[in-house]
């Protein structure tokens, strides 16, 4: 059996390891298009902040990790897939055949279509190479503009401030991290950043960038102007699916996969940021470009590839973010569901916020700011559909009783069993 995995991110690496765990004989080839040992994009901000060296970003610190597991790591970029012939053609022309294929190609950054984006001094923060470029340019005291205050933008934000630059953030949406924070949470984050000396513009976007002799000059949608020594672009990412054109593998935003992480083509699976798969609450398939989903995908896909029939329970959107020391997290359907109750506690002065969303007596979503202890129980409550019963009333009064509710609901469930 020959397994080919395209992509050396967490989904690909975990899949390779899982395959080896279930089949000591199979041939496993891990194909990546970056020169480095497989590394984690999650760790890049910490590299930028000088908290870790490059080896600290590696997915597996042991240099012999892959060799020891007889996982062959090969550099190369897939150009096309022929699912009938069970072959993948690389950009350099080489052709690889497979029995089972896992596509875990992740995503790429998208720059907004505005004039000047190709000027020197504008960097993404997505790859290790990007991080090196930023590290070289972002020196203390320099003016830096961060385009995009989404999840990735906010992670980079911390690293840039740690480097001592004068930072300005521009976010097109009316609030920071709009896909994981509601208005209250976004406002708190913005005020927090401002209190730490970061200028934050929300509800406007960069319309154009021009090169002055010394600096970059940015024009904002609201008419404002910004000067910058460096612009870091974090305006979004898209799944890497272009190479699948003509392959017959069904795609939407990402590659559509079923509850076995199978694509529409036989023996072809997809996992991680590139996969558009089942979601926990049973709605439309979605791309959840988050680390836990990548890990789950990689594991479930690999089990199925190895012949262990495994059903994926669906991914839950969960995020956690550290913005200059303010920890925020979001879980599931934090926007709420029709007819569901909602509870929230906001203390703006202390930057604390907790919002809970219910469907009947079940928790379906949550947002937390300034919350670092036992946060995982929010996932547990949502994903195991714990009936909160009498505790729900208490939670509507004081949402911070959530850990107590979790503990009693779980212990009493056992008592009843």
């Amino acid at each position: 059996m020959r397994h080919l995995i395209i992509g050396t991110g967490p989904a690909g690496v975990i899949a390779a390891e899982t395959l080896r765990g279930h089949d000591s004989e199979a041939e496993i080839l891990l194909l990546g298009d970056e020169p480095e040992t497989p590394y984690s994009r999650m760790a890049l901000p910490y590299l930028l902040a000088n908290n870790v060296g490059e080896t600290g970003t590696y997915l597996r610190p042991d240099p012999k990790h892959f060799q020891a597991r007889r996982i062959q790591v090969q550099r190369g970029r897939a150009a096309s897939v022929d699912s009938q012939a069970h072959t993948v053609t690389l950009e350099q022309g080489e052709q690889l055949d497979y029995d089972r294929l896992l596509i875990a190609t992740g995503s790429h950054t998208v720059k907004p279509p505005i004039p000047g984006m190709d000027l020197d001094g504008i960097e993404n923060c997505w790859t290790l190479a990007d991080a090196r470029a930023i590290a070289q340019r972002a020196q203390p005291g320099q003016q830096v503009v961060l385009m995009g205050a989404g999840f990735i933008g906010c992670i980079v934000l911390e690293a840039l401030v740690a480097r001592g630059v004068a930072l300005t953030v521009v976010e097109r949406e009316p609030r920071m991290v709009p896909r994981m924070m509601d208005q209250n949470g976004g406002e708190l984050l913005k005020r927090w950043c401002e209190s730490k000396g970061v200028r934050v513009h929300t509800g406007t976007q960069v319309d154009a960038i021009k090169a002055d002799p010394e600096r970059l000059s940015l024009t904002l949608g609201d008419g404002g102007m910004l000067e910058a020594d460096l612009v870091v672009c974090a305006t979004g990412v898209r799944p890497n699916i272009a190479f699948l054109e003509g392959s017959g593998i069904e795609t939407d935003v990402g590659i559509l996969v079923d509850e076995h992480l199978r694509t529409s083509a036989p023996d072809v699976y997809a996992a991680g940021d590139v996969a558009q798969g089942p979601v926990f609450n049973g709605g439309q398939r979605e791309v959840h470009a988050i680390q836990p989903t990548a890990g789950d995908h990689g594991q479930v896909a690999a089990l199925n590839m190895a012949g262990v029939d495994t059903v994926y329970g669906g991914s839950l959107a969960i995020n956690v973010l550290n913005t200059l020391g303010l920890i925020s997290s979001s879980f599931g359907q934090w926007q709420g569901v029709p007819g569901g109750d909602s509870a929230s506690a906001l203390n703006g002065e202390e930057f604390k916020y907790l919002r809970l969303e219910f469907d009947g007596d079940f928790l379906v979503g949550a947002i937390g700011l300034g919350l670092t202890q036992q946060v995982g129980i929010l996932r547990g409550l949502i994903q195991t559909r714990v009936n909160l019963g009498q505790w729900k009333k208490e939670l509507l009064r004081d949402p911070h009783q959530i850990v107590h509710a979790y503990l009693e609901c779980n212990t009493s469930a056992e008592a009843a069993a």
Partner: protein
Amino acid sequence: MGWQRKILRVDLSAGTAVAEPLNMEWANAYLGERGLASKYLWENMDPAADAMGPDNVLIFATGPLTGTMSSTSGRYAVVTKGPLTNAIACSNSGGKFGAELKYAGYDLLLIHGRAPTPVYLHIVDDRVEIRSAQALWGQTVWDTEGWLKSHHQDTRLKVASIGVAGERGVYYACVVNDLHRAAGRSGVGAVMGSKNLKAIAVRGNLGVQVDQPERFMAAVRDTHKMLAESAGRKELTECGTDAMIDSMQAFGGLPTRNFQEVQFEGADKLNPEAMTEVRPNGHRNLLTNKACFGCTIACGRIAHIDKTHFTIVNRPQYWHASGGLEYETAFAFGPVVGVDDIDALTFAGYLMNEHGMDPISFGVTLAAAMELYELGVITDADTDGVALNFGNAEALTVMAEKTGKYEGFGQILGLGSKRMCERYGRPELSMSVKGQEFAGYDSRALQGMGLGYATSNRGACHLRHDAFAEDMEDQSGAGKAKPIKVSQDKTAMIDSTGLCLFTSAAWDVPEFQRQIDAACEGDWPESRLWEIGERIWNLERRFNLAAGLTAADDTLPPRMLEDPAPSGTAEGKVCQLDRMLPEYYELRGWTRDGLPSHETLQRLGLEESKA
């Protein structure tokens, strides 16, 4: 180490909160908690100042072992000038507040002045805020704690607060922390109220270190084991302090109907068996036992009240569990007021915690009022129409609530027994010393207790000495001075460590010594601890003398000195204080007028203290 070496000084008049280094010279001479706070009080105020005025200083103090792994390491003391006694007040408490204050980085919290409007303190490590308590003024202790946790979005916030009783100056208002632990005696809550300080909410993240961790952990292991294996500890765990009911009843030292009697016919309805008895409807008073911070004894009782009981039948807000009866609450709501309805007693206990009052002083004050009522000195016109007969359970709970809310006759009860009885022209009916009510031990049966009550620096108190064994063995007044003096010094030392007096169920000075010696820098031989205890006792005495008290205040009510015990082992006996007191003064190195001699002060290093 052991200490955090930092104190927090808050001036509510000025609206400032400033941290300053702990005076290590004083820490080395007074250890912590009770002793160290007494020293700071002595150095920071005029003992003659009005207890309810802005010049009184309110001190919250932890000890060097507070917050460590020593058993019962949650203790803190509230030290101030007490309004009930006009003497030095030192009330200590368990729960979890004290350790949290220490973890926030402070050995002591000194509160000066008076806030212009109600405030609370919010302390998170180095961040200290004096915040408006307008939303909290008039609220109960329980609602205050709930509001603060919810507002600051921190279920682990620790709160010490006062209820309306403290706000309105009930003379025996206490400071309640963790819902049902209290710095109970002498009216320290009234001082807090006089400062317009509703609550202290604290969260500490800084931890505590000890000087020699390995030696300390070895001491912890051994002393934990000693406690675990001790019979005294076992009884406290299983029965709480309420086990004392049966022994005092049998001995004839259980004060009944305002100390007119020494045995109570309803004692067996209030003892540990009564607490655990399952009633026909399935209800059982006691739910479980609960520990304070770090405590491997867990004497605290958690009880609940039968929902069909008259006290709460229509009040579902009281259908939850809370702190249950301990010996002193059982005595103060039971025999001394003649009530044997355990649910009514439990409810009265809830009300004390909810409104922030000392159950001993309340119960004994109510007992005096009942005697006044039965004598016809006061009538229904005074008591809002409530028949204040001994044994009236409804009168107990109604008056507890009225006093807690400072309503009607509750305002009179809030004066304490001394002021109340003086008001009605019958001062002899107040069972108190220096204005503070007796605990649940009759000093005709327990002679040394009488001497202990008379000489306790905070007014009548059963926790300022520990001579129960001697008292029960020998009911004469002979040879009592020594065990009282020695155990007074010892308890003063134990009260200054950050640990609970109840550990002496298994430990003696060597066990405290081992833990202190490993936790604190320097050498701590037993002799040094004994000397510290004696130094503290004499400093407290000096405070009281400077506050205007004299040897004439070292006395007992005539009922103890003149009326023989009507039954029990001491039948026919009175308390022989006149025999014990001179011997005690001499042993203390005090003059016949009860003044520490120059030599005594010099020996204890007190001669250079502020005059």
